[in-house]
């Protein structure tokens, strides 16, 4: 471990590890590409022109900074800590995913790649990838599990309108894991011209680091905004965790502030007994999949479970490697929220604040519902509203019995 002992923010080490997690577990065909990408990213980071281009896009294309909004009615409803929403759902394309896509598409352009592939679960990343491909004139292929194509139909239409080719993946249970396998098979076949735009802070090094850096704008803005609003740092951060990119983006700038409690919310699905959930950290164990070592939902023989969540974006049996490390060293606490709790929180936020959160974000709101009432009125919680819920109205409407 080469992380400096006085900071939790210097990872990964030179070989892409966060403690025992992370690394580069990919087929040889892809290794030269990953090493090339690592070099290209290092060079880009050192180039002020790259940072300036990204900042310009973040401001004028995405609409950053996203507001940090004091949720007065939700706070009153729960009767405890003051609740602030970091409103990533107001970004262009409707989620935090655009932050990462812009960072990577500009990098792909620098490397000289001419074709983009991506995987998507809820379609949030697929839409963001298709969007930046339209903006930068790249052909775009999005792999999406057949189950997800069905339950996230609005996003499928958006991707197609943006010019992307959406390929439904029928292998396995047809969710995010299977889409990622298929994207990797495409990449290994089209190494010459293709850039793999991974949507979360997972995969082989340097993806977890790179995606985190692009998303850390969330946490940096939050620090400034809360200082302006309250004159101090929050007592607690809460974010939903699937692969964990919005969460690591919010958390990372606060890791060295010991007075800030940090909570990641995993999808508890139908409960942690059995395999109908996606709580990798609470119910999985370390293993190797999709290029990195991390906590995985798996059986005793190392076969990976499909997982289940009401939210397509959390429906992944793994998690970013930095989260696994933060879990093991105890800096971040990871808790599960069940499908029905998320559904209740989805409705609560919609009714009292007029903000329809993505089902992913509703998991974080559900955790707020649990803890805010137990905290003092002068304490502060910041919760990540990572995406908007328009894409989920059919799923939720069906469960609530609306005639659609």
């Amino acid at each position, binding site marked *: 471990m080469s992380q400096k002992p006085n900071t939790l923010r210097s990872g990964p080490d030179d070989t892409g590890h966060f403690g025992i997690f992370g690394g580069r577990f990919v087929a040889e065909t892809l*290794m030269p590409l990953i090493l090339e990408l690592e070099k290209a990213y290092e060079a880009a980071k050192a180039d002020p022109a790259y940072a300036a281009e990204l900042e310009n896009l973040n401001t004028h294309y995405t609409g950053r900074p996203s507001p940090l909004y004091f949720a007065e009615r939700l706070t009153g409803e729960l009767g405890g800590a003051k609740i602030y929403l970091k409103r990533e759902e107001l970004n262009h394309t409707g989620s935090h995913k655009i932050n990462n896509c812009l960072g990577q598409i500009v990098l792909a352009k620098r490397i000289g790649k001419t074709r983009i592939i991506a995987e998507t679960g809820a379609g949030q990343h697929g839409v963001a990838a298709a969007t930046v491909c339209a903006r930068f004139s790249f052909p775009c292929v999005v792999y999406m599990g057949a189950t997800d194509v069905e339950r996230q139909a609005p996003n499928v239409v958006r991707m197609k309108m943006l010019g992307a080719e959406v390929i439904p993946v029928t292998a396995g249970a047809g969710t995010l894991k299977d889409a990622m396998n298929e994207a990797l098979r495409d990449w290994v076949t089209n190494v010459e011209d293709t850039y793999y735009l991974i949507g979360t802070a997972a995969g082989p090094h340097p993806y977890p680091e790179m995606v985190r850096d692009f998303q850390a704008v969330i946490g940096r803005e939050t620090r400034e905004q809360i200082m302006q609003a309250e004159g101090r740092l929050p007592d607690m951060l809460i974010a939903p965790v699937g692969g964990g990119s919005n969460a690591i983006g919010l958390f990372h700038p606060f890791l060295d502030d010991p007075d800030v409690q940090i909570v990641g919310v995993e999808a508890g699905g139908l409960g942690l007994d059995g395999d109908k959930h996606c709580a990798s950290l609470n119910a999985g164990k370390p293993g*190797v999949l999709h290029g990195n070592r991390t906590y995985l939902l798996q059986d005793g023989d190392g076969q990976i479970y499909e997982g289940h969540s009401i939210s397509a974006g959390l429906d992944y049996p793994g998690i970013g490697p930095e989260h696994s490390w933060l879990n093991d060293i105890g800096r971040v606490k990871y808790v599960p929220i069940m499908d029905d709790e998320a559904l209740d929180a989805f409705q609560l936020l919609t009714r009292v604040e007029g903000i329809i959160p993505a089902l992913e974000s509703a998991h974080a709101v559900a955790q707020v519902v649990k803890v805010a009432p137990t905290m003092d009125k002068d304490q502060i919680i910041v919760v990540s509203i990572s995406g908007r819920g328009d894409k989920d109205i059919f799923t939720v409407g069906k469960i609530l019995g609306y005639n659609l």
Partner: protein
Amino acid sequence: MSPTDGTRIDSRFAACAKENRPTLVTFITAGDPDLETSLEILKALPGAGADVIELGMPFSDPMAEGPMIQLATQRALAAGQTMKKTLSMVHAFRETDADTPIMLMGYYNPIYAYGNDTFLKDAREAGVDGLIVVDLSPEEDSELCIPAIKAGINFIRLATPTTDDARLPAVLANTSGFVYYVSITGITGTATPDAHRVAEAVTRIKGHTKLPVAVGFGVKSAAQASEIGRNAAGVVVGSAIVNAVRESLDAQNRATETTVSAVKELVADLARGVHAARSQAAE
């Protein structure tokens, strides 16, 4: 002297070289379509003409495999295949065959879940000679490669069209037994390799190592095996054999009376191909 000097893999490649012919490496998925049939196929391979056996360890997420081996993997897992059962197959094979080299091929997670040290010990005891682990790059050699060599098991590395001269030494550093050249950029059993480009690549790799170079991914027929075997020390065939298994199954994916014979016939045909490789070249 390394713990992996003079393994069954070394001897077999040397023996084939002496006969001036390429080594035929055949792949099957362990437990496909069921444990009993799979063991029967395994035992029939040497008699049909296989020189070296590559036994696939099924994994739920075989990222480098094309549709044929993906399906074989799913059949094996559906029939209840586990790592213990795969090792027991090798053990049973060794009761009647002390010479034919067996390599286990697959992905890291099932090994990691089994426990690396226990796995190496059990594999060695069962009679495993080599390992091919697709998602363990030289960058992660301390995980399993170095311990495997210490345990006397060859760790066979894949070299690919993207492995350039600058990277080859890193790939070859801890490789033993042979070098497996992946003839295409892509997944198993899909594109057809260009024999001329493969020959160039094999010549390039030979410039970096004394180890035999075997070629696989996309070799489907005896004619292809023969053509590629003119210049390569070995030819690996996988998806075509696994497809022969699939085509012999009934509608419920159960073995039929033709399953084992279908594999034997195909392997015998491939063996004729490799035996003719160099004599054709001389004509």
